[in-house]
């Protein structure tokens, strides 16, 4: 089969082998095959620049920026990583000041409720939406990039959907006290904090669980999703649910409360954990002991390090890495920083260049970072608009509805519909159609490629170096210059639309390509 034949069949598959009545209407125009590009780019690794510094930036941040590239070139990977692992030492004044635009996030639960009661604040989603807007802003503009990635990781691991109606008064507090407080701490502490927070107890119904009729929802997800995974029995669920009775929410204050009257006493056994649980007064302590046991269970260690490896290394992480990280997790009593340090310093990490595909959230956040746009000069209209754009691409931060958190592997996101909305979002963001309010350079082409390149090919080369840290194979460079009806060797003039009103389209096409889709 010749190359051109292969292409036309491939293309036909798009429109369905001429089956459907509408199939003939478009896109059948044959595209000449480009064998060289095909072989050069066959493996995902072939799309991204291979050097270790850019590899680390693509994984441990929400996407390289001009500034972060300069920084890691200066510090080297080791020092750069250590700096990110100690976020308190990273100045982040601009992002901190941006956060003051989301004032509700600082309000204690009691304050929020009394303001709503007094009518000085409306009852609704405002606080939860501010949390989503803040998360998006931090992902783009915080200097503490790895910390923010871990906040997102834990928000998914101990998911409490934001926004969702029944956690309107406490979800922001959960973010601060459970997730952000412990994101670089010990998992055992985060797990116990989540079990005593009204957001989790509401989301998984434990607040309604009583000794007469235990509600199994939280008990099951605690075992299946938060800790050991699918090794439990139905008896373990029933026992865990019984021991967790009494951990509830006070209807008047909206705060966590341990209710003696609701606690089911009597011996419990969950996996290898046993407790006589003789009194209601000792019930809370017994429940926390179970959580400590579960956090340090080898199956929990393995699940969490596997999820971290899927997050940062590859969709099917090597068993050797999972084994070594499990040991680090257990030896450090569930402390996460040593696990991250071991992960990013591992040979398996170094060998995983280009093995991940960006999820929609990562993709759109990385888009803003890649073009270097700043937030609204004042207010939050642009940030909100970006949040809703990300939402319509399927992945607003913390918004996943089921308790298992967003999927983190490429296969879960290979939806044509999702891909299309990402492509549409790239052009919207870059051209400043939506959001309109971000601070953008006066001349984007000059900002991204410097002085006017001599040819169309040189323009694509310069932009690819800026966005991807590499140039493209000749066939793909030609495909992009061909978009303007030009050969790569064609001379570029200062008044050409390619560096004028169509420049955004060129940037968007490059962000739509596999060179940006992989990380």
């Amino acid at each position, binding site marked *: 089969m010749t190359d051109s034949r292969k*292409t036309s*069949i491939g293309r*036909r*598959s*798009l*429109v*369905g*082998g*001429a*089956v*459907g009545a509408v*199939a003939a209407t478009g*896109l059948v*125009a044959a*595209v000449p095959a480009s064998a060289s590009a095909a*072989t050069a780019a066959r493996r*995902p690794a072939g799309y991204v620049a291979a050097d270790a510094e850019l590899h680390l930036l693509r994984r441990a941040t929400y996407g390289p920026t001009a500034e972060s590239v300069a920084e890691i070139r200066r510090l080297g990977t080791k020092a750069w990583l250590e700096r990110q692992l100690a976020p308190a030492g990273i100045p982040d004044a601009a992002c901190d000041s941006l956060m003051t635009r989301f004032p509700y996030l600082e309000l204690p639960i009691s304050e929020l409720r009394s303001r709503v009661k007094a009518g000085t604040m409306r009852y*609704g*989603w405002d606080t939860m939406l501010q949390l989503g807007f803040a998360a998006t802003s931090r992902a783009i503009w915080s200097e503490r990039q790895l910390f923010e990635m871990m906040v997102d990781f834990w928000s998914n691991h101990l998911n409490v*959907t934001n926004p969702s*109606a029944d956690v*309107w008064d406490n979800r922001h507090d959960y973010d601060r006290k459970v997730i952000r407080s412990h994101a670089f701490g010990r998992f055992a502490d985060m797990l116990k904090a989540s079990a005593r927070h009204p957001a989790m107890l509401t989301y998984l119904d434990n607040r*309604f669980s009583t000794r007469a009729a235990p*509600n*199994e929802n939280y008990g*099951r997800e605690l075992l299946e999703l938060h800790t050991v995974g*699918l090794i439990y029995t*139905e008896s373990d669920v029933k026992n865990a649910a019984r021991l967790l009775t009494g951990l509830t929410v006070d209807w008047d204050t909206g705060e966590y409360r341990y209710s003696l009257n609701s606690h089911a006493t009597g011996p419990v056994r969950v996996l290898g954990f046993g407790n006589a649980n003789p009194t209601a007064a000792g019930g809370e302590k017994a429940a926390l002991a179970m959580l400590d046991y579960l956090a340090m269970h080898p199956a929990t260690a393995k699940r969490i390090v596997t999820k971290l490896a899927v997050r940062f290394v590859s*969709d*099917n992480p090597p068993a050797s890495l999972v084994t070594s990280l499990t040991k680090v997790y257990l030896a450090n009593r569930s402390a996460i920083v040593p696990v991250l340090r071991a992960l990013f310093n591992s040979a398996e990490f170094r060998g995983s260049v280009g093995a991940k595909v960006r999820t*929609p959230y990562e993709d759109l956040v990385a888009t803003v970072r890649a073009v270097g746009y700043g937030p609204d000069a004042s207010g939050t209209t642009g940030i909100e608009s970006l949040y*809703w754009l990300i*939402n*319509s691409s399927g992945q607003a931060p913390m*918004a996943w*509805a*089921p308790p*298992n958190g*967003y*999927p*983190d*592997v490429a*296969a*879960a*996101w290979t*939806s044509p*519909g999702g*891909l*299309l*909305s990402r*492509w549409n979002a790239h052009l919207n963001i870059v051209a400043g159609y939506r959001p309109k309010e971000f601070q953008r350079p006066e001349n984007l082409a000059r900002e991204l490629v410097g002085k006017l390149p001599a040819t169309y090919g040189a323009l694509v080369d310069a932009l690819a170096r800026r966005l991807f840290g590499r140039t493209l194979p000749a066939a793909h460079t030609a*495909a992009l210059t*061909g*978009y303007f009806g030009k050969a790569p060797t064609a001379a570029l003039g200062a008044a050409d639309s390619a560096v004028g009103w169509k420049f955004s389209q060129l940037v*968007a*096409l490059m962000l*739509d*390509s*596999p060179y940006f889709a*992989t990380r």
Partner: protein
Amino acid sequence: MPDLSCDGCADDQRTTMSRRGVLGRAAAAGAAGALAGLTGDLLSTQLAFAAGRYSGDVLVVLSLRGGFDGLSAIVPAGDPAYYAARPGIAVPKSRLIGGDSRFGLHPALAPLLPYWKAGTFGAIQAAGQRAPNRSHFAAMEQLEQAAPGTSLRTGWLDRMLGGLGATDPMQGVSVGGMMPARVMAGPVPALGMKSIDEFAMFGDQAGQPMAATLAKLYEGAPAALSGPARQVTGSLATTRALAATAYHPANGAVYPDDTLGRALRDVARLIKGKAGLMSACVDSGDWDMHENLGIAESGKRMHDKLAKLAEALAAFARDLGTAGMKRVTLVTVSEFGRRVHQNGSGGLDHGYGNAMMLLGGGVVGGKVHGRWPGLSERHLVDGDLAVTTDYRAVIAEILHKRCGLANTRAVFPDIRRTTSGIVRPR
């Protein structure tokens, strides 16, 4: 607690953000990884088959996410144990509609009553998976792979589409979400779209060949990247044609303005647009009612959910009309039923056996199929309704009689089709 109004966010935003009950498509992240490597060669093999024009029923699979309580919908009013188990939330006999000597329909299903009476809406009780699995995620994964104990990791609808010779993404479409429907996961191309109108590429127009340029950039990419890219660029032509004219439902049908209503409206549009559709997936979420399920009155949770569901289904049937529905079979599935006894929160925990509902011109409706195992303690499985009919046997009968699929074993290994006559042969 009063319902929150979502001031300041548009309708579609609110629905996509609806709570965890959506228990969404492709829920199990780990499982999705198993799909890697399925595309490639298998895909080109599939393309070698040029499908003839499909003349079978369009199979619409409606997934009721979160664990649907079939006992609230198709109520076993003739079983006294039902009323004993649910003192606060059982549907009183006086409120039931339709039904037969043993069962009655929840009053919120009233919009479907005409179809029940006409014999095109029916149900099967005590259906479900081969073994209980009360984890949403594991149960959903098994439900959609539908081949426990085998090495098959594709979705059963993908195998069905393959068996029918589907080659075009427009032949298997899931409407309503960005996420791929797991049940369609596998080598046969299938499409996920939020809606027909939103499936368009911004900026791609005369003089701006964006899609064609991207097709070149994705050429030769690994299947995981190039597959969806090809499907996007290819399907744009169809959706562009469909979206070119505004859609007006026929026969005065009015779809509820919610996720399910909009999705079914688009399915009807695809069917009428003759885009080659063989199967469509739509989702209805928020059935995970651990608390405050409510009595059978307006304003209560289960009542209102069922009412919206019935409204959407009735609009769909009305829009397609009797003639259109002759070529459609809609079936509901859910990962599990719910506990027979209500819990302390006026809700129901995860259970096992469940009801499936069927709507279509070929459905033998107006009755409840299946063998009723009873709800007295000794008949329950760990507190749950037993399963007397494998859900796959029901679907297999539909695939065989209505979709013209001869070899249903290729879709459901080891499953014998039901012969109870839930659908008529075409």
